[in-house]
């Protein structure tokens, strides 16, 4: 690094911290031959680069219903999910930009007994919004609230291996699992598992009092919520206040952004994204996540019980075309591996299923199934553009001599009557933070959501073994084999991984983005700042 570069870096840092004025900075860089326009751009970039406190952050979210509630067991949409991560709630751990676990309310998490028992030490001095100190009893009550017998919380499934949770003194909690799980800390990052104050073993969520960075000020279900900074927050946050609006209609959301009423909108309309991209002071929030669109085949039903048929269909679909036409390029092609490339232990299994109708034809000939006719149940409830995607797949498969009959299913009750029931349907998966948690709910033989009915013994054996394996290299090899098996033999057609696409005003500063969920992993309210 030259001397100038070093000085520039120091100057940029000073600007970020507000210690160097715009005028001084521009004079400094122009003295070294930079043009005025470039110098001004450098100033705004530097001014955004260092977190600043203050301001009200406004976001318009494409989710939210009048049935939303402050009950953490009911959080399930894009409006409510971040509450547990970076608004009112503070979970035991957070996930960082590199998809690693970082202790949050917890100070440390130590496995013992082959990762069957986890000892969690709590950070000291944390208080809830009402001033009550957070203790191990609150943690136990919070977890029990979700895993209790009459709990309807989605976190119950996430923690299905958890058999007992006990307080051991005021700041130690012990989790006992039915089987070893080296990834257990990841599961505790679930957005339902924000800590709540308890009394007599019961948590109190009804006033929205948590230990998170913002104190709830107002909440109108399906319309709006506002919150103010928690001055006693044990972590670090930047905004003085936040305002979340629920705007389901994408055009209205876009207009709210364009007229300057909000700083951020999620789920931008991809059809008009090029126009939005060129709006003044706008950056695209474009993050490739772990969520995917798939077309699961039930491998215990004809004709999908034949391996050749499954493979022929996999070769007969042009996934890149789907990415280009359904997602307007904002995504990446799938390769029948449920694990997104950004996940730990993910591999790219060979051969990559590119579009090859001839190979598909040859496979069908081998199985004696030429002129294959199959039904594909499609609906926009499975994912936006689902019916279009199915019609496109039908066109592509024609070249391989396969006739796909697209059955348009009603949006209502799609998940009750079509998915998991029809031999070939479309599906959407939100992705999970770890290989184990994702494969356990979607591909394990006994999983309720095993939407391919694929029960490969070797795969299931590996999945259980890898869960408790603490040797990284061995674990990597096991997951690699799992992915190869699912790619070669499974009934899952992973069509594409969709990006999270939104619009973000340049006044908002941010670091690298999380890839595990939309909204910077749900941490945008805590991590972003207004420059």
């Amino acid at each position: 690094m030259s001397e100038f570069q070093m000085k520039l870096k120091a100057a940029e840092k000073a600007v970020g911290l507000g210690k160097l004025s715009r005028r001084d900075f521009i004079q400094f860089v122009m003295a070294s031959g930079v043009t005025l326009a470039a110098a001004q751009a450098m100033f705004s970039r530097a001014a955004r680069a260092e977190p600043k406190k203050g301001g009200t952050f406004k976001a318009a979210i494409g989710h939210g219903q009048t049935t939303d509630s402050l009950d953490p067991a009911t959080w399930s949409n894009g409006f409510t999910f971040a509450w547990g991560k970076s608004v009112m709630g503070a979970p035991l751990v957070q996930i960082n930009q590199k998809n690693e676990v970082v202790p949050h309310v917890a100070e440390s998490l130590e496995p013992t007994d082959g990762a069957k028992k986890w000892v969690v030490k709590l950070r000291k001095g944390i208080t809830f919004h009402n001033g009550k100190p957070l203790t191990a009893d609150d943690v136990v009550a919070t977890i029990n609230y979700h895993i209790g017998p009459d709990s309807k919380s989605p976190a119950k499934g996430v923690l299905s291996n958890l058999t007992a949770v006990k307080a051991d003194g005021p700041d130690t909690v012990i989790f006992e699992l039915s089987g070893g799980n080296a990834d257990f800390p990841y599961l505790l990052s679930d957005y339902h598992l924000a800590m709540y104050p308890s009394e007599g073993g019961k948590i109190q969520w009804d006033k929205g009092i948590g230990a998170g960075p913002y104190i709830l000020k107002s909440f109108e279900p399906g319309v709006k919520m506002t919150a103010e900074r928690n001055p006693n927050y044990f972590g670090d946050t930047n905004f003085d206040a936040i305002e979340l609006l629920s705007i389901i209609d994408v055009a209205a959301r876009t207009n709210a952004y364009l007229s300057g009423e909000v700083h951020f909108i999620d789920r931008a309309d991809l059809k008009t994204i090029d126009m939005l991209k060129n709006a003044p002071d706008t950056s695209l929030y474009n993050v490739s996540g772990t969520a995917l669109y798939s077309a699961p085949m039930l491998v215990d039903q004809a004709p999908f019980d034949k391996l050749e048929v499954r493979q022929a269909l996999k070769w007969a679909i042009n996934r890149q075309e789907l990415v280009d036409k359904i997602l307007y390029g904002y995504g990446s092609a799938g390769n029948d591996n449920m694990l997104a490339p950004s996940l730990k232990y993910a591999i790219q299994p060979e051969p990559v299923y590119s579009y090859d109708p001839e190979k598909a034809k040859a496979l069908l000939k081998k199985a004696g199934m030429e002129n294959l006719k199959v039904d594909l149940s499609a609906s926009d409830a499975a994912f936006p553009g689902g019916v279009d995607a199915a019609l496109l797949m039908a066109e592509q498969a024609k070249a391989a001599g396969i006739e796909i009959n697209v059955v348009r299913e009603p949006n209502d009750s799609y998940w009750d009557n079509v998915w998991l029931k029809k031999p070939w349907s479309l599906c959407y998966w939100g992705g999970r933070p770890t290989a184990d948690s994702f494969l356990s709910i979607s591909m394990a033989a006994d999983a309720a959501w095993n939407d391919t009915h694929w029960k490969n013994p070797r795969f299931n054996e590996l999945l259980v073994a890898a869960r408790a394996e603490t040797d990284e290299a061995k674990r990597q090899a096991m997951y690699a084999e799992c992915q190869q098996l699912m790619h070669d033999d499974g009934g899952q057609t992973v069509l594409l991984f969709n990006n999270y696409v939104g619009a973000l005003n340049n006044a908002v500063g941010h670091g690298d983005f999380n890839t595990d969920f939309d909204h910077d992993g749900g941490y945008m309210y805590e991590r972003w700042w207004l420059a």
Partner: protein
Amino acid sequence: MHPVLKTVLQRLGLGLLTLFVVSVVIFASLEMLPGGFAEAILGQGATPETVAAFNHQVGLDRPATVRYVEWIWNILHGDFGYSYAGMGGSIKRSVSELIAPRLYNTFFLAIMTAIVAVPLSLFLGILAALYRNSWYDRIVNTVTLTTIATPEFFIAYLLMFFFAIRHRWFYSLSTVSDSTPFLEHIYRAALPALTLTLVIVAHMMRMTRASLINLLASPYMEMAQLKGVPRREAIIKHALPNAWAPIATVIAFNLAYLVVGVVVVEVVYVYPGIGQLMVDSVSSRDMPVVQACALIFAATYILLNLSADIVSIVTNPRLLHPK
């Protein structure tokens, strides 16, 4: 008994009967919807056990007739029941509590629009009748026909584009809440009100014009002209009183639309009115809320039609003083 009072009582009785029939229709059609609240809430997580637990909790596992009778009985006692949402938690949200602020917002917007749109369309209509077939008449007709023929969401987007994005004179978002001050509420609701005005003016204005023109050809108008009454006075004093009946009907119809039919405008401007609440509740199958909204809509129609009838009776001496 005074004939007006008699008619009103008769109509009210009929209205109650209609409401009863409507309630049966609403309940039956909601029963027929595929999927249920549990499935809508649980999404992919709807296993048979969780669905059964949910249904038991909100009492959906009982026969439909029992639930209907219970529902209607409670409504007769002024209790609209509780929203399914939050049933699992310790806080139950009553339907009336959920609907009240939305209904206020909807009436706010409807009244605001009506205050502008009704006088405006009467004024334009009377002028159009007065200067029939003039340039003024043609221009007013063309413009109002254009605005009524354009889909309301398109008008909304055009207005938003010019007044909120190009020139930032108004808000593109009309999100209001309990804490919004009155004047800001008006300001926020300005664009939606303007949109609705453009949508309903044509209907009322053309009816005013048509019924006046109809009367202008009648012999008593000719008489008025012959005895030297100025044209303007003839229309306002002699023709208008007889034209009130059809105009009132159309106005009532449009006011009802302002309450029950503006969900598209609400969605575009993100105005938290009752239409959005109902659509939202249908998609999440929150039946108590849907039923209450539908009943309110039906009642609005019945009451507004009743008032239109009363206006036509009161303005018509023949009906007011029968032999």
